[in-house]
């Protein structure tokens, strides 16, 4: 068992644990903290895949900005313990088995897809900084127009959030 495998399995375990905690926790704040755990372990996996820029963006934007927004809203609205409700018979007898089947089928299909058998990746190492430089070339040359369009999108989102959240006069 080499080091990348150990890192992968530890992070994968933490990610799945966080996702399960998100489902099982009854306080929304516990779910938010579990989601932060998932995001940080995914950032470590991105590092393992050699995508260091994406890992940094994951921690700063997702685990930082977005989750702070979530926690802020949970605190602001004073979200308490979630009420459990019985779900319908259809969900219990058809939804649960079908959902489990979907998960298993997706995992099986991905594990046995062509790409999974043939391609193996290296550890993050020699060409990491090159990858980030190439990524910036892609981002600011090939994808320059979509990149600029996202700034318009962000602007619209800010305006939309302000208009929605302001108090009515």
């Amino acid at each position: 068992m080499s080091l990348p495998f150990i890192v992968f399995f530890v992070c994968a375990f933490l990610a799945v644990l966080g996702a399960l905690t998100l489902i099982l926790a009854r306080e929304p704040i516990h779910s938010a903290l579990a989601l932060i755990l998932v995001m940080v372990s995914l950032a470590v996996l991105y590092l393992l895949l050699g995508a260091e820029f994406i890992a940094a963006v994951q921690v700063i934007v997702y685990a930082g900005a977005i989750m702070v927004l979530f926690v802020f809203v949970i605190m602001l609205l004073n979200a308490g313990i979630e009420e459990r409700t019985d779900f319908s018979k259809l969900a219990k007898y058809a939804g649960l088995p079908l959902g489990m089947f979907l998960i298993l089928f997706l995992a099986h299909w991905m594990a046995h897809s062509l790409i999974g058998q043939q391609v193996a990746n290296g550890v993050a190492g020699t060409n990491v900084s090159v990858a980030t430089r190439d990524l910036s070339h892609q981002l600011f040359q090939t994808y320059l127009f979509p990149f600029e369009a996202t700034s318009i999108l962000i602007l619209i989102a800010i305006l939309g959030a302000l208009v929605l959240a302001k108090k009515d006069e």
Partner: protein
Amino acid sequence: MSIVPISYYLVLSAILFGLGIVAFVFKRNIITIFMAIELMLNAVNLAFVAFARAHDQLDGLVFVFFVIVVAAAESAVGLAIIITLYQNRQTLNIERINLLKF
């Protein structure tokens, strides 16, 4: 040099996406449902990065960047909607927010 096969990442991505769907369907708090959407986006991002690595193409990483930007915009607007909803209905339970329910 030791290696972790791409398929491992893809399986993890599928599991996280499935758990995201489960959380989306079963949770009753609207904020937690929003978090389930973020979890699914994260799972898709992991698949993007794994495939980008497998093909030695950087387009996948650029797509992850755009997905993160769209997720940020989406959560800003969505949480504003949730605040407005709470001001109007005084609840976060989706069982009580059933005006459009058939």
